[in-house]
């Protein structure tokens, strides 16, 4: 910036602060009169100030760093902030609201003159940004929050009760009911106690260190740090003093077995009873206590559960392998990378299908091989700004489907790449995730040099999903898919097999012929850049399985990919 502009910047600052002298005002005018660059710079500064001011009037708080967790289901109605097409639509809708507000008034002119401005100032970019920003991005200022009292850490053959929404490994549990028909669930309370629940069972999770057992069998391991962990069994309360024990609740009573350490049992109207290592007994429904032999083998322990989990993991992996070998015969596949090559990869991402023309194998740059969805399967981790897989995919297509399994560590970049074509030339897609947690898909329609008013200058229609990301999804394998129908322009985003967002691409920006050519998984390469600087768009996370189809897959086909591929 030249010194004149710097001086102008400083003077303008003082003007805004109300401290500029008359000489200062004269100096501003002098600089502006003498310099065209200064004029443009001045206007730019003023428009930025006006933009900030409009945000203030709209009641937008400056954003906090982290977004508190939001369930995808609650954000469906919210319209993405960064979507020009939607906000335009939304603006029109707002105008209608304003219009009717205006006509409803007796004095149209008064309403227009006074209210339109304020209505507009407060609604300017629509309720979407107000709701979106306040609730989604920074509803509460300061640190991001998450809720829960325990984590699901292992699930083996679990069948959930019909009224219980199925949980996944890694889910945080809030206070409430946990009911399984069969199988084993390992729950780690935040206090440090680990509980293995065997179905059929029904529990009420109360707090980070307490639960009520309605029925079922469970084994708890309570290390010293978690001492005081308690279970309510009917009218009785079991307080653990640092130990390992089993409980089986049935209509007949509560069977308590202490494998190690000691537990205290409190029953109203009775003195507390202490049970120590090797003791076992049933507290009968009629209030009597019956001593019995200890039988630790009746209660599945952590080590055995781990073994079972491992074998379940292995069998799921084998089942996926089988499905995948059939899946790759789908004639609509343009490219498919299963990330399942055995042995040394030699820095190549082997294509699982053969192309008629040319080689589809990708070149791995930087990205490290890590464990994938199952312990015997691989994935690639993208961490550093240079990490990527390069590929060349020839041919011309019309409709497209992009599908991948991704584990996101965090969304650090404005654009976090899934799959980006190098040139982003006409007909080439870009598939990425915004830092706001919105899935982004676009196909370039016009070349960059298109001229004309802004509306006509648009070179693509970006289809953005509502934000689906929340920090609690970090480290979880997610299935993302986007289908693009070149006939109707209908574009759909899917998360874990469920439709996330659906939008029709504007007719004038609809692309009939699509191409891929040079592209990267997990990053973006600008073809024109020689070296030095490049836009940092690398994904911070891992990818395991990636497929591109020359067709828009149906919702049930996406669901099928998800069901067979979920870990």
């Amino acid at each position, binding site marked *: 910036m030249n010194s004149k502009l710097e001086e102008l910047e400083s003077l303008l600052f003082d003007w805004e602060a109300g401290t500029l002298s008359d000489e200062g005002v004269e100096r501003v005018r002098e600089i502006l009169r003498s310099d065209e660059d200064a004029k443009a710079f001045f206007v730019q500064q003023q*428009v*930025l100030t006006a933009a900030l001011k409009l945000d203030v009037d709209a009641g937008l708080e400056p954003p906090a760093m982290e977004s508190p967790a939001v369930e995808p289901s609650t954000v469906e109605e919210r319209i993405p902030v960064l979507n020009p097409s939607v906000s335009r639509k939304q*603006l029109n809708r707002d105008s209608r609201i304003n219009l009717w507000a205006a006509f409803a008034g007796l004095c149209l002119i008064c309403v227009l003159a006074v209210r339109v401005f304020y209505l507009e100032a407060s609604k300017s*970019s629509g309720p979407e940004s107000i709701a979106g920003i306040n609730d989604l991005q920074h509803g509460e200022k300061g640190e991001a929050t998450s809720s829960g009292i325990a984590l699901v850490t292992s699930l083996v053959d679990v069948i959930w009760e019909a009224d219980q929404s199925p949980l996944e490994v890694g889910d945080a549990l809030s206070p409430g009911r946990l009911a399984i028909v069969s199988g084993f669930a390992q729950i780690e309370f935040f206090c440090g106690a680990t509980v293995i629940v065997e179905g059929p069972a029904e529990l009420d999770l109360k707090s980070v260190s307490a639960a009520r057992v309605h029925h079922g069998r469970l084994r708890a391991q309570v290390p010293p740090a978690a001492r005081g962990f308690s279970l309510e069994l009917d009218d009785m309360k079991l307080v653990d003093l640092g130990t390992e024990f089993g409980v089986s609740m049935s209509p007949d009573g509560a069977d308590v077995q202490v494998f190690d350490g000691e537990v205290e049992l409190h029953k109203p109207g009775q003195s507390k009873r202490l049970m120590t290592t090797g003791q076992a007994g049933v507290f009968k429904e009629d209030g009597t206590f019956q001593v019995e032999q200890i039988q630790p083998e009746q209660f599945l322990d952590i080590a055995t559960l781990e073994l079972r989990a491992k074998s379940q993991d292995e069998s799921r992996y084998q089942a996926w392998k089988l499905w995948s070998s059939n899946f790759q015969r789908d004639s609509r596949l343009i490219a498919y990378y299963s990330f399942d090559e055995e042995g040394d990869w030699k820095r190549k991402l082997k294509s699982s299908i053969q192309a008629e023309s040319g080689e589809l194998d990708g070149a791995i740059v930087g990205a490290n091989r890590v464990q994938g969805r199952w312990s015997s399967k691989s994935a690639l981790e993208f961490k550093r700004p240079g990490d990527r897989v390069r590929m060349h995919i020839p041919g011309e297509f019309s409709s497209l489907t992009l599908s991948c399994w991704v584990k996101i560590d965090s969304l650090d970049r404005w654009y976090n790449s899934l799959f980006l074509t190098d040139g982003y030339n006409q007909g080439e897609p870009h598939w990425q995730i915004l830092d706001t947690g919105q899935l982004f898909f676009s196909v370039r329609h016009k070349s960059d040099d298109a001229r004309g008013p802004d509306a006509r200058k648009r070179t693509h229609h970006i289809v953005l999903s509502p934000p689906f990301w929340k920090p609690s999804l970090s480290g979880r394998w997610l299935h993302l898919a986007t289908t693009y129908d070149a006939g109707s322009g209908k574009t759909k985003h899917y998360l874990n097999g469920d439709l996330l967002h659906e939008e029709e691409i504007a007719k004038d920006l609809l692309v009939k012929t699509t191409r891929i050519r040079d592209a990267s998984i997990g990053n973006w390469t600008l073809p024109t850049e020689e070296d030095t600087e490049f836009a940092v768009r690398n994904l911070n996370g891992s990818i395991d399985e990636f497929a591109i189809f020359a067709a828009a897959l149906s919702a049930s086909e996406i669901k099928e990919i998800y069901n067979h591929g979920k870990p």
Partner: protein
Amino acid sequence: MEQTDNSEIFVRHLTEHQNRIYGYVFSLVGDHSRAADVVQETNLVLWRKIGEFKQDREFLPWAFAIARIQVLAHLRDRKRDRLLLDAELAEAMSVEAEKQAEKIDIIREALRPCLQVLTPTNRELIERRYFRSMSIDDVAESVDRTTGAVKVALLRIRRQLADCVQQRTTAGG
């Protein structure tokens, strides 16, 4: 019904372009409350001239032309008030202001993520100055720094924001 239809379209346009008109007026008038006054005057004039507005005519250039007249009138009428620009300069910068104000919604969209990437300390400064409208002296006192230091810091952050907005509005996709 024709009049109603026309009014409806007119109001829709007026609402849609309200921020752009504000951005245009503010950049030439240089003061928020004055700018709000001029925008209201402009809205009134536009409404009175609704007969001139034809559906096939582009609304924004027409609105900018009216706003320009209002801005110039304002600057000439209030000569005795303290103003940053005189009417001649405002006129000379009118085209540039139109060009930039057209993009104000895009700039606002870009601004949000740009604010997000500021360091907590910097964001706090911006928040105090722009969102809580604290004076520079008060900001300085609240963060226990000198007025000069706060000015330097705020200028730097503004420059960072401007660069970020610039990149985001040109790089998208």
